[in-house]
């Protein structure tokens, strides 16, 4: 349900909200146009948003299109996800310096940006919660993620449009965001309905030009209901993880191995994938060395390298790891699915491999 502590904000006021966040010390990041796609980057003003643009997404294809209105958030998720801020793709964890009779560890700066995420969709809120389980709620906490996560201010946007690749409804992760945000915006033709999800969210609104909501609340509710009805893609998650565990020898793995490039794109764009490597990066003088953490992927044969070869030496083994981890073993490990139905891996797979189709094929419902 729509939060009852909702207010209405004129669209023109969004710029003031952004300015307010900067003034409070936040680095505001959100959707903007670059390289022919809607990506996440710093936003100083509201007109950096992809106003009047939308995206057409298909397996293996993404195209920007003009909309015939001036919607601020009239598109679905793009190639970037918020993990690029919370779990940076490349991060020097610390450096090691040679000393007279030992070595010293120099921790990197702990002064990380305080991010304000503007435009977090429901699937992505769930994805953040999924990564929280990995990096914060296990026996060991990742301090780099923790530092970024605990300072982040989250402004959700309720989805007014779904891409053909979206299937959050199947995963129970959307399209309506119900928790995990400080503020949530629903875009109506003339204004935003702003739900308040936290005390600091409410505090941010003080002094901004907002008014009490009336009929707008029901209109806002209808926005996500319509989006839900638009969604065509589905994933049947019944009897996971057993379905995949019992089909580790299914012929479909050979079939998908013929198509899959093992290029890692699906895992890179996936907002929940957390695999990473730590490399040693020494300097030329032999005095310092950095420990550098980078996103890695189960599609990289090196990920499972042991002296004597790779544990998953072919594409079949690697695709099987990806799909079984996402949809099955994740549940055993973290109590939730590793998939939030955002559809990124479908769109950004260069050859358009669609996990919902692969699962359907394994389930047998698709077998000719």
């Amino acid at each position: 349900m729509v939060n009852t502590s909702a207010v209405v904000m004129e669209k023109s006021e969004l710029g003031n909200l952004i300015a307010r966040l900067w003034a409070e010390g936040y680095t505001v990041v959100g959707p903007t146009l670059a390289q022919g796609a809607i990506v996440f980057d710093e936003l100083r003003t509201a007109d950096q948003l992809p106003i009047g643009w939308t995206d057409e997404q298909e397996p293996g294809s993404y195209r920007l299109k003009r909309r015939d209105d001036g919607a601020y958030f009239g598109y679905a998720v793009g190639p970037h996800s918020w993990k690029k801020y919370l779990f940076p793709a490349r991060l020097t964890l610390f450096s090691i310096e040679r000393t007279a009779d030992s070595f010293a560890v120099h921790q990197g700066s702990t002064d990380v940006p305080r991010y304000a995420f503007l435009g977090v969709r429901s699937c992505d809120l769930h994805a953040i919660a999924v990564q929280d389980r990995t990096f914060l709620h296990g026996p060991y906490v990742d301090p780099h993620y923790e530092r970024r996560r605990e300072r982040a201010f989250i402004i959700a946007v309720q989805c007014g449009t779904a891409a053909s690749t979206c299937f959050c409804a199947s995963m129970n992760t959307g399209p309506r965001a119900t928790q995990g945000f400080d503020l949530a915006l629903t875009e109506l033709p003339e204004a935003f309905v702003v739900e308040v999800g936290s005390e600091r969210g409410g505090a941010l609104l003080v002094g901004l030009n907002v008014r009490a909501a009336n009929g707008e609340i029901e209109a806002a509710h209808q926005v996500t209901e319509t989006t839900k009805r638009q969604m065509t893609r589905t994933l049947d998650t019944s009897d996971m993880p057993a379905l995949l565990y019992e089909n580790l020898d299914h012929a479909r793995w050979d079939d998908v191995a013929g198509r899959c490039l093992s290029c890692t794109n699906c895992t890179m764009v996936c907002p929940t994938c957390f695999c990473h490597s730590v490399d040693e990066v020494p300097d030329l003088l032999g005095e310092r060395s950095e420990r550098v953490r980078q996103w890695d992927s189960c599609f990289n044969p090196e990920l499972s390298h042991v002296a004597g070869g790779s544990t998953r030496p072919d594409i079949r083994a690697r695709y099987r790891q990806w799909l079984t981890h996402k949809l099955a073993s994740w549940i055993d490990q973290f109590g939730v699915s590793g998939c939030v139905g955002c559809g990124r891996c479908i769109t950004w797979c260069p050859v358009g491999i669609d996990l919902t189709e692969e699962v359907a094929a394994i389930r047998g419902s698709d077998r000719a």
Partner: protein
Amino acid sequence: MTSDPYCPHPAVLRSVEPETPGVATFGMEFQEPARAAAFHHRPGQFNMVYLPGVGEVAISIASAPGEGVGLRHTIRFVGRVTNALQSLRPGAVLGLRGPYGSAWPVEEARGRDVVLVAGGLGLAPLRPAVKALLAERAQYGRLWLLYGARQPSDRLYVAEYADWERAGLELLVTVDRADASWRGAVGIVPLLFRKLALDPSRTLVLTCGPEVMMRATVHEAIDRGVAASDVYVSLERNMQCAVGLCGHCQLGPEFLCMNGPVFPYERVARFLGKEHF
């Protein structure tokens, strides 16, 4: 604020003892006395050994808790990091962090017979278990160690065998390839099982070695009537973080570094046999 689980701690290399061609045991000690004092491990756990400028690898702790000063690691030189370790001399400083992972069920084994089955370097993580069992010999029934090496010169810890046997361990060794002086058994380790007078209901089996060898051992033990929940295996995968964050060591639902490396066979049986999983 949470400290960085990736952070290594300086340790001084105290000794390097060649074991077999291409394998040596490294004695190390944390530079900070406080860290040494706070370090408590259980048999079967491992450390991350870090060589500045080169990298970091998972290595089992080969010394038993409380055995002498510092920690011992038996290392085979196989690749980038381990080959570089080979050139170190006592006094060198490297990094250690740990201990990580699960341990052999030494406590649970009280009152029972134990068969330890090691293949090659797999004896390294079992050595602390041997020491712990023998330290309280009266608490256990029969204790066997079945050990397989490629050839007689590949056997680890040969100098200690006599002590172990005197303390009440029945040691059976086999080699793949005998030389002129070899008087013992020839053939694969799991076959040694057939020489034991087992009481399967009171037996625990702990095994570490190449995965094919462990699978054969498990089948041999189960065929002899040992329950799958009484057979323990120590598994190996690529590891980078050792704390369940990096994703490299997954086997189905298990993070080997955190939930393993030691598992009751029953727990991993479903996935262990799956090729390339």
